[in-house]
Structure formats: C-alpha cells, structure tokens
C-alpha cells in the first residue's frame, strides 16, 4: 500500500484522527475547560469537510476492499455536515447534563462518524461489517449517556433504558445480519463485492441477502424492525437524537447502496420485491402510527420511519435513477429531520416538556423558532418550495417510471405513498397548529444556546436552499448514484476459479505481488490479486 492508496482514505483517517485528538486534548484540559472539546471536534470535522473539496479521494485501495468515488464523497460530506450540526446543536446540552464526560462524548460521536464515512466506500463484506459496527457501537453508549443513580423515573433511567433497548435489538440484528453474511460470502466464495457480483444464484444466496437486508433495515428503522426507534428517540439525550435520527440512517442507506446496488446489483430479482414490500409496510406503519402520538419526539420518530419507507420505495426500483432519488431524499431528510429535532429539543430544553403541548404558542414566544419549525414541518410533509417536496416528487417519479414485472406494483405504491403523505400532513399540522394557533403557557421567549442556534439556521438554510434551487444537488446525486452502479457481469477470472477448485500450494507473497504456482500476479490495479486474497 503506497501513499497513493492512503489518499483514498484521507477523510476516514481524518475523522479517526480527530477522534483520537479530541480524546487526548480532553485528557490534558482542566475540568473547567472541558467544554472546549465540542468546538474542537466541530472544527476538526469542518477541516475534514473542507479537505474533502481539495483532496482527490477517487480510487481503489486496500487491495480492492475500499473504493472512493464521487458516490462515497457525496455521502461522506453529508455525514460530516450532519456531525458538525449534531455537535453544535448538542454543545450546550452536553456541557450542562454530562459535564464530566464531554471529551468521551465527542470521541464516541467521532468514532461513529468514522464508521459512517467508511461505509459508502466498502467493497468487502468484512470491512462492511466492521464499519457498520464501528458506527453502531458508540451510538449504544451515547443513547445511554445521561446516567443517574437510583432514580427509576429520572432522565438517566430513561436513557439507560433507551440504551439497553437499542443495544439488545441492535446486537440481535447484527447477529442475524452476520448469519446472512456467512451465507452470502459462503455461496459467493469470497468476501469481496466482486465475488458477490459473479456469484451463482442459489436460494441460500437469496436467503443471505434478505437476512443482511433485515440487519441493515434495523439501523434504518424499516418496519417491522423499527420498534426500537420511538423508544430510543424518546429516552436518549435530545440533541443526540437529532443526530441519531439522521446520520446513521443515511449511513445505513449508504450501506444499502454499497451492498445491494454495487454488490448485489446483478441479483436484483432477489431483493427488489422484498424491498418494495418493506417500503410499503414502512410507509404505512410510520404514517399511521404517528397519528396518535402526543410526544413530539415519538411523533418525529414515526414520521422518520415513514420517510425511510419513501426512500426504500425509490431504492426498490433498482435503477440508477431511483438510487439518485434516494440520495437526494437522504440529504433532504437529514437536513429537515435534524432541524426539526433540534427545534423540538430547543423548546423542550427550555420547558422540560417533550409533549406537543410544549410547542404551544411558540409563534408568540419565539417567532423565528416557530418559522423554522414550520419550514421543517412543511418539508417533512412535502409541501412545495422546500426540500421535502422535491424529494417526494422525485421518488414518486422514479418509482412510476420503473419498467418490468414490478411496474404495476410500483404504481400502486406511488398511489399509496401519495395517500399516506396526506395522512402524514395530519400530524405535522397538529404540531404547526400548536405552535401557531394556540396560546402559549407564558410569553417568555425560548432561550436557545448559541451553538444550537447556528445548527438550526444551518438546517434551515439547507432546507430552503434545496427547495428553491434543487438543481445542483440533483446533479450531484445523479453523478453519485452512477458510481454505485455494479459493473457489468464478468466471468470469474481463471486464476480464482482454479484456486477455488484445487489449491496445491498457497500463493506466496513476493515483491510487488504474489506468486501462484510460479505465475506472478502483479500488484497493479486489477482483479487478480483481489480474487487471490479475497475469493
């Protein structure tokens, strides 16, 4: 691996180093200065984000296990932005509630981000598993971050419960996905995506694929793997939920793109119908169950579930166009959802009330915060001129244009999606009504910390900007989606096939490549050595 290879991983390494740096700085800082770790973390991430515009990260590295492209960059920038906004939004809360554990908080957040930035580029199942867990494990800890001793009703108790639920369901889904991975890799005869692309199609392979889908579906909050979502969102620390509800979901979308689009693109018939079915169920469950919710966070949790359903709808098309719409939707969703959660958090942090009643009369207390909330709600509901409208329209258009056996079903799904988006309006309007048409309990303006304010404004700018001029983002998502396309099916290289059948002597590592039965396989970019090691 030469320097050229490392360049591909610049952003990932940057995030990981930032994590370590934050931890080290936290060690040397005196207790009173601990709150400086937050701006430091945000600054480091900003530096990485800026670097992403100057460093060329396209290319394949680690013997084909990782591949950087415009597609990975698209996601990585999204994660970095979400991370920065998440840190800024949570600064005040973390400094107040967990004063003595701030450095670790940001360290874990950055570790999770490092896992996310790896995900879109993975081209190997082992790396996929590890980066998925690198993303997930710190989140379990962060969900339970607000601990308290002995009070079973307190905030800490709820956080611990949120954490253990997230953990148990998460670990179980990891085990299920792991089992699926074993079938996938086993039938394909290798862990590289190239092996998946060329694998013979068997039932066991399809079984593995849907088990992996179930595992990723858990992180994504796809029904029926969504049940942890509202509980965790309700119990975990407020600003962390804003991050949790957006970035890991986008990362899970990235994983879906990598595994199912790049890796299993040739086996679309295996997963596309299942994905469409899940899309239907998820849209339906999310929209309907949001109706009776009184707690703002739970309501937004279910609405998030519904939005994942829309993304899956576009994903199930299996076309590059559909994927582009998924990417577009993901960006719109992250900006909108983080914003909505942050507003809800800002109000709840002020009044200590997570119920929708807490938003009452927000218009009179803090008109700008109310406007921000309204814009986010409109975007979530898919009303024109904000990001959410384009996202939904594009998803519907992509789904409508599907050709092939799924065409009729997709048309039905578009109709169902349209109906459900009207149902969804119901609960968004409830929040808007509370904020605009009811009288506030008191006229005191809501106190919003500086970092939180910056974060909300950033989300607002993104939502309105995308709504007013979606062109550039649309082009970027098209360009990114094209990079996830699986290469056209190629026969398994001779060397690999031969190696799999009868292997008299193990290949020997020699200078600049490998020696297999006297045949030298070069270290240059090509398929051969991947298959030697991976397949």
């Amino acid at each position, binding site marked *: *691996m030469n320097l050229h290879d490392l360049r591909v*991983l610049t952003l990932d390494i940057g995030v*990981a180093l930032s*994590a370590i740096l934050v*931890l080290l700085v936290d060690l040397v800082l005196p*207790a009173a200065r601990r709150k400086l770790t937050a701006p430091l973390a945000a600054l480091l991430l900003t530096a990485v984000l800026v670097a992403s515009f100057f460093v060329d990260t396209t290319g394949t*590295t*680690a*013997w*084909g*296990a*990782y591949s950087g492209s415009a597609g990975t960059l698209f996601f990585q920038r999204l994660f970095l932005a979400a991370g920065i906004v998440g840190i800024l939004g949570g600064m005040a809360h973390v400094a107040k*509630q967990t004063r*003595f*554990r701030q450095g*670790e908080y940001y*360290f*874990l957040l950055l*570790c*999770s981000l*490092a*896992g996310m930035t*790896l995900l879109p580029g993975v081209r*190997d199942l*082992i*790396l996929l*598993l*590890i*980066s998925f*867990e*690198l993303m997930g*494990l*710190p989140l*379990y*800890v962060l969900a*339970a*971050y*607000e*601990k*308290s*001793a002995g009070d079973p009703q*307190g*905030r*800490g108790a709820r956080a611990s419960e949120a*954490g253990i639920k997230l953990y148990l369901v998460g670990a179980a889904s990891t085990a299920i996905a792991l089992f699926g991975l074993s079938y996938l890799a086993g*039938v394909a005869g290798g862990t*590289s995506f190239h092996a998946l692309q060329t694998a*013979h199609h*068997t*039932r*066991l392979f399809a*079984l593995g694929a849907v088990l992996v889908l179930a595992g990723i579906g858990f992180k994504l909050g796809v029904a029926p793997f969504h049940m942890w979502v509202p509980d965790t969102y309700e119990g975990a620390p407020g600003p962390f939920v804003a991050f949790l509800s957006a970035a890991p979901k986008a990362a899970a979308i990235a994983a879906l793109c990598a595994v199912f689009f790049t890796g299993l693109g040739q086996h679309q018939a295996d997963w596309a119908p299942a994905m469409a079915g899940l899309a239907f169920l998820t849209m339906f469950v999310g929209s309907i169950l949001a109706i009776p919710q009184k707690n703002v966070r739970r309501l937004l949790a279910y609405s998030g579930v519904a939005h994942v359903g829309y993304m899956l709808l576009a994903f199930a098309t299996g076309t590059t166009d559909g994927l582009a719409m998924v990417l577009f939707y993901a960006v719109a969703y992250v900006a909108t959802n983080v914003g909505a959660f942050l507003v809800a958090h800002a109000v709840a942090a002020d009044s200590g009330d997570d119920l929708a009643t807490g938003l009452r009369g927000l218009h009179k207390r803090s008109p700008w915060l109310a406007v921000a909330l309204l814009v986010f709600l409109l975007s979530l509901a898919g009303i024109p001129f904000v990001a959410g409208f384009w996202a939904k329209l594009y998803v519907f258009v992509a789904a409508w244009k599907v050709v092939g056996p799924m065409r009729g079903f997709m048309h039905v799904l578009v109709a169902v999606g349209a109906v459900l988006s009207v149902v969804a309006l119901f609960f968004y309007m409830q929040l808007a009504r509370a904020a605009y048409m009811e009288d506030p309990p008191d006229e005191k303006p809501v106190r919003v910390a500086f970092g939180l304010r910056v974060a909300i404004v950033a989300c607002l700018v993104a939502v309105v900007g995308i709504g007013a001029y979606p062109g550039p983002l649309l082009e970027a998502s098209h360009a990114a989606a094209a990079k996830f396309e699986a290469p056209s099916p190629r026969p398994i290289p001779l060397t690999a096939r031969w190696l799999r059948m*009868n*292997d008299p002597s*193990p290949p020997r*590592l020699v200078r600049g490549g490998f020696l297999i039965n006297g045949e030298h396989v070069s270290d240059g970019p090509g398929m051969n050595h*991947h298959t030697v*090691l*991976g397949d």
Partner: protein
Amino acid sequence: MTFTATMIVFALVGALAFVGSIFTVRSSKLVHAVLWLGVTLGMTAILFVQLGAPFLAGIQLLLYVGGVMTLMIFGVLLTKRDGDSELKTEEPSRERGALIALAVFAVLAGTIWLGRDALQRTAVPSLGTGWLGTSLLTRHLVAFEALSALLLAAMIGAIVIARRRDPDQPSEPKES
C-alpha cells in the same frame, strides 16, 4: 456410507455443542447458563480444529472461554439481587419463542437441504495461519484498523457508562 472416526467425532462434538446451547438458553441459573455457553464455545472450537482452523480454535478458547465468559460471570454476579437465582421465563413467551425458533430452523435447514447439490464441495486444506496474517495486513488492513478503533471506542464507552462516578466530579454524585 461408512462411519469414519472424523464423522463420529463430528457427530459427538456437534451434539454436545447443541446440547450446550440448549442449556445456555434454558438453564434457570444464569451462572450455569454461562458455563454451558462455555461448553458450546469449546465444542465449536473442536469443530474449528476439524475444519482446518486450529489457530481460530485457539483464539476462540483464549478470547471467549478465557475472557468473555469471565466477563459474563462478573456481569451475572454484579447484577444479582437477593433471592433472584431463579429466572423463570414466562410461559407465553416461551411458546412464542419456540415457535419462532422452529420456524427459523425450518426455513434455514430447508433452504440448505434444497440447495445441497450446490454445496457439494470437497474439503481443501487450509492455507495456514501465515496466509491469514497476510490477508489481515493486505486486503483486510482497513477493516483491521477499523476494528482496533472499534475496540478502543468500546473500551472507552464501557468505562464511561459503567463507572460509578466520573473523575473530577464532586464526591457525592448528584446528577440530574
């Protein structure tokens, strides 16, 4: 069909692993369950040896039976309440669980059995531990590094949430 020694060992060890797993999930005393898990993992290690992965078997014994199980026993003992040795599962959930488990087994085994022709592969001698090491430093290097980050994060995360009081915190913890 002739019974070779390998097959007999496989059958015995496999049966033991299975029985161990049953007791792991059914044993009413949690400490016993942990020990039964040890049996399962140990038997799996023997299977690993049979399947040409002795190195992995060693790791399994060291890491699991040595480390994880000790941790688990600590976990059980530290969270023990008085008079809480009996941990009965509720009846309805037991039936429900059994039903699901059987269904899953039926689906998995059915799929394997239906596709058994494609699984007719001959055993190939392992490429050896050196080969494993090479792959860790080449193709799986990034994953290896990510795993080390993951272990660090897990360690710090576990410490952060498990410790009773944070350093620098006033002696009597009063958190909100």
